[in-house]
């Protein structure tokens, strides 16, 4: 579905990604784990077209999207929930969701999807006229995911959805991610620092260190890999 071939991305003079290659198949949950600053978020930004790769290629369903504008990439069905959630703080919950459906014109479909995300997160429905900035961290994460779902993603990119959330909420969110994957047939690319959590959810995983992919395997194998256990599971 998505094929990243040897991309290199720079921030000014600093090379953030070096020859990163990742492959994601339809319907999978893939995770990318690694330490803070390893280049995980940059990878996502390169896919979304906000930090286009200088070299290499990104192919989505046969189309080269490496240098496409971000809004066209979204139109193709790649939607990202970025790190830190980035809720529009002065827009209401409803308006935030509206923005998620910015590129869609099917009013009925949008209505149905709003109902769907409210069924996933009933809490949001209660708060629908509240400003996004007044929500708690967990609620914001729910809103961020819901907002992305409103764009009917084929491939959902999630950047650190567990960041700064209470364990119980993290579990809830992970369960929902699984549910979306199954119910909506949405392919999911999950970037996480919490390797343990991510590897439990995912089918396959990639490990990233200072801008390079150092390992890739099935999630199960990665969880049993000694290096991974030591470095990322804290065991």
């Amino acid at each position, binding site marked *: 579905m998505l094929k990243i071939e040897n991309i290199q991305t720079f921030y*000014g*003079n*600093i090379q953030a990604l070096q020859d990163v290659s990742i492959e994601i198949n339809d319907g999978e949950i893939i995770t990318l784990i690694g*330490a*803070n*600053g*390893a280049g995980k978020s940059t990878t996502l930004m390169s896919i979304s077209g906000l930090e286009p790769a200088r070299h290499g290629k990104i192919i989505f369903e046969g189309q080269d999207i490496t240098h496409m504008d971000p809004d066209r990439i979204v139109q193709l069905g790649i939607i990202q929930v970025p790190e830190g959630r980035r809720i529009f703080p002065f827009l209401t919950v409803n308006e935030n969701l509206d923005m998620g459906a910015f590129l869609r014109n099917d009013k009925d479909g949008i209505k149905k999807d709003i109902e769907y995300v409210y069924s996933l997160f009933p809490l949001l429905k209660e708060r629908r006229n509240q400003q996004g900035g007044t929500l708690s*961290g967990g609620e914001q994460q729910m809103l961020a995911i819901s907002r992305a779902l409103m764009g009917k993603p084929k491939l959902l990119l999630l950047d*650190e959805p*567990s*960041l*700064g959330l*209470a*364990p*119980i909420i*993290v*579990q809830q969110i992970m369960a929902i991610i699984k549910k979306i994957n199954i119910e909506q047939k949405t392919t999911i690319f999950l970037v996480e*620092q*919490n390797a*343990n*959590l991510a590897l439990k959810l995912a089918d396959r995983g990639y490990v990233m*260190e*200072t801008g390079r992919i150092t390992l890739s395997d099935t999630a199960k194998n990665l969880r049993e890999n000694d290096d991974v256990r*030591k*470095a990322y*599971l*804290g*065991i």
Partner: protein
Amino acid sequence: MTPILETKNLTMEFGGLTAVGKMNFHVNPGEIVALIGPNGAGKTTFFNCVTGVYKPTSGDILISPNGKTQQRINGLKPNKVTEKGLARTFQNIRLFANMTVLENVMIGRHTKLKSGLMGAIFRPRSTLEEEQKVVQDSYEILIEVGLEQYVNELAKNLPYGAQRRLEIARAMATEPALLLLDEPAAGMNPQETKELDETIIKIRDVNKISILLIEHDMSLVMSISERIFVMDYGKLIAKGTPDEIKKDPEVIKAYLGDDDA
């Protein structure tokens, strides 16, 4: 022993949101102490309170750089805090990008120099000597952290790991009694992390600077720190030696979730 840094019930609120709540915390002279916790737990906010970037809502921050009397530094401006002997690095590197590596360190020496405007214009002997000395001193600090080959490069052209080290060098140039490192290993590869490890221990042993660090890299934290404080949701949830922390159920929960791992 008088702790070099001590906070009593330190609290920082942002419009009703408690980012740091009633932190009781201390670093003893000569110690390497780590502050860990999930992202967003309030570690950097704590740093910012201590270094004067934020004015804490309540509580006390006490320091005793000379190891004897304690003084309260709440609400002091960052430059005053630095003058008193606390120096820091930043999580998202804040070097003076368009200055050379050497100049970056020379800025660190700012508080140790005296010459003012008149000195700059008339360049009396004392100023000239001072300038010569600051160049020399700064260069030596660069040698210490192993950055001397970059001395005249612009800071922005340095590789990532070297930029992190330069931040440490710059902070050391202020001759602190306590060095606060905010995620010094972020973005480093294992080899660089290992070198950093040695650098930090050297700073403590050779230069007799106490160290407080925020870090995610568990291997680094576990191998060099004497004591670890764990924060979650703005609160201290555990403290102790690395071994104690490893076994602490609260910590495992905060890091790994309610989980079998």
